[in-house]
């Protein structure tokens, strides 16, 4: 009912190649998130699905029908804009009813649908007000309501939570998730916030400079990033990277640089044996570093000098210096650490990542 297929989509603005060979099959009822830094092409792709931007090459089909030439109003989609785009001179009711009015729905039917959407979103009392009398969160709900009443095949969201303050954002995220579970409509959601992507998406598409970096379920992106960019983008605080050289010492594969010497564990070592003598990038997430205990094998620890201690309450972030690199370690709140102290850190061996120094692809 709400299947969207993007095939070999390309978008050019004059000579700028904004979206490159975008391919994706979105299943019915799926919640897909496009995520990436500004200018990566995620909003452009969304707007092409909406019909607000022309497609330079490639096809977009909804439910098997190619919609390239269809005007936005004929694609049976609804969109929620970053700035809500509420009609300032109309009441909330009229804002939500507008789309139905344009499609010549009967008045009683319009009233029914608007009430239904208003109840779901909890804005029933605001129906007579004008947008300028509403708070940001309320406007956001009205924008959602306007999209819901249309019962479209696909919902499109263009960074809808960016204009809300932090607390409201967290609240609305949960509500959006509940809404999706309740309505079951296919949704394509664009954001630059990886937390939103991870919490909302059934699948996440990470984009950079117009190119898709990886498509997968949130956990897949977290555990098995396809390249250094995805690894550094997903997860907060970001993954630590260090340039290392692979050496073979006594039959054991070691990753070495001025600050550390890590023995690569068994399974991983088999894959990396071909890279002896080469420079690679080592990646380890802050949460996969802990203070070294006696039980930790020496080959998996390294010394570090503490530069900043950030107390979060639930954990402590230690900004440390390791050789020429700085790293962040997220450790237990019970750890006693002081600035300028030397601390030995240990790596969780199952969570080591290696990336090719040139292509940045995961190995």
């Amino acid at each position, binding site marked *: 009912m709400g299947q969207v297929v993007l095939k070999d989509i390309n978008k050019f603005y004059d000579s700028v190649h904004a979206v490159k060979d975008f391919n994706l099959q979105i299943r019915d009822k799926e919640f897909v998130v496009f995520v990436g830094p500004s200018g990566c092409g995620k909003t452009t792709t969304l707007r092409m699905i909406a*019909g*607000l*931007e*022309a497609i330079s090459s490639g096809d977009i089909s909804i439910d098997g029908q190619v919609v390239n030439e269809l*005007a*936005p109003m004929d694609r049976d989609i609804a969109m929620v804009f970053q700035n809500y785009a509420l009609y300032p001179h109309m009441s909330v009711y009229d804002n939500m009813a507008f789309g139905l009015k344009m499609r010549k729905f009967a008045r009683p039917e319009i009233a029914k649908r608007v009430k239904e959407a208003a109840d779901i979103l909890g804005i029933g009392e605001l129906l007579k007000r004008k947008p300028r009398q509403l708070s940001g969160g309320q406007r956001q709900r009205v924008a959602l309501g306007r999209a819901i009443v249309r019962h479209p095949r696909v919902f499109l969201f263009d960074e809808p939570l960016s204009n809300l303050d932090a607390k409201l954002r967290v609240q609305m995220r949960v509500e959006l998730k509940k809404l999706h579970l309740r309505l079951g409509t296919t949704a394509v959601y664009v954001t630059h916030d990886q937390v939103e992507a991870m919490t909302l998406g059934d699948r996440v598409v990470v984009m950079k400079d117009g190119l898709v970096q990886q498509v997968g379920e949130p956990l897949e992106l977290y555990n098995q990033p396809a390249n250094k960019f995805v690894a550094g983008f997903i997860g907060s605080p970001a993954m630590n990277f260090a340039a290392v050289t692979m050496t073979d010492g006594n039959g054991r594969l070691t990753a070495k640089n001025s600050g550390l010497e890590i023995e690569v564990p068994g399974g991983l070592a088999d894959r990396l044996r071909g890279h002896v003598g080469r420079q690679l990038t080592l990646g380890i997430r802050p949460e996969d570093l802990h203070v070294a205990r006696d039980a930790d094998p020496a080959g998996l620890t390294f010394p570090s000098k503490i530069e900043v201690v950030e107390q979060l309450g639930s954990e402590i972030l230690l900004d440390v210096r390791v050789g020429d690199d700085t790293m962040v370690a997220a450790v237990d709140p019970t750890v006693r650490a002081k600035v300028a102290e030397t601390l030995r850190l240990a790596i969780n061996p199952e969570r080591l990542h290696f990336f090719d120094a040139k292509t940045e692809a995961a190995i």
Partner: protein
Amino acid sequence: MIEGAKWRRWVYFYIPMVLFLLVLLFPFYWMVITTVRPDGELYRPWNAPNYAPFWTWNPTFDHIRLLFEETLFATWLLNTMLIALASTLISLVCGVFAGYALARLKFPYAGSLGTGIFITYLVPQTLLFIPLADIIRNFRLGDTPWALILTYPTFLIPFCTWLMMGYFKAIPKELEECARIDGASRWKAMIYIILPVAVPGILSAGIFAFTLSWNEFIYALVFMSSSEEKTVPVGVVSELVRGDVFYWGPLMAGALLGSIPVAIAYAFFVEHYVSGLTGSVKG
């Protein structure tokens, strides 16, 4: 928005745009062509077979020469320029001061004064010209540039005030407060801090006032009688027509050359003019 097929763009945009431009600019083209066209070609009936309107192969400066030699056109140009500059200056000073007072200062009757100034803008010159002529005569200002230099501000000041009010309101109060804490008096703060920031507004008001005063006609027509004191619009209308005979060549030359100073001033300040125009409507 998605642009439709290419033909749509042509039909809905290019063609109407070109038509608009042609219609709006044709009379000026006609002015130019007539100015340089010799009399023989000029006075051909439109249904004569050799009527070739859009171009001339024998351009001449005769009309322009006639204009300058046999009429006081040069004097009129000077008069108009002088009067326009002087009245613009007066209006700007009054407008800036009044605009600042209304936008920034709190004093009794501020609201009604603002409304009062607005009301005067709505009283057209054609309503006042007869009694005003009397007054001018009583002050013995008739037939001197002062008659116009003092009366033009009446329709320039309200507009300038209004425009400047808008600009002043947009300047954050903190600028002034900071200056006054730094030791400046209100007056100094206004002169040294606020005015420089409001320069775009002043330019807008200035260019708008300049074109408006160049454009004024009825006061100049009624208050000035001798040829030496006339402004360009009045001179062109009254002295290039002898009896019932219109000397179209010099007339168009006069129209063209009379328009050029304004057009040049406008060309330098287009952006300011447009923001002045739109600012007055929004404010």
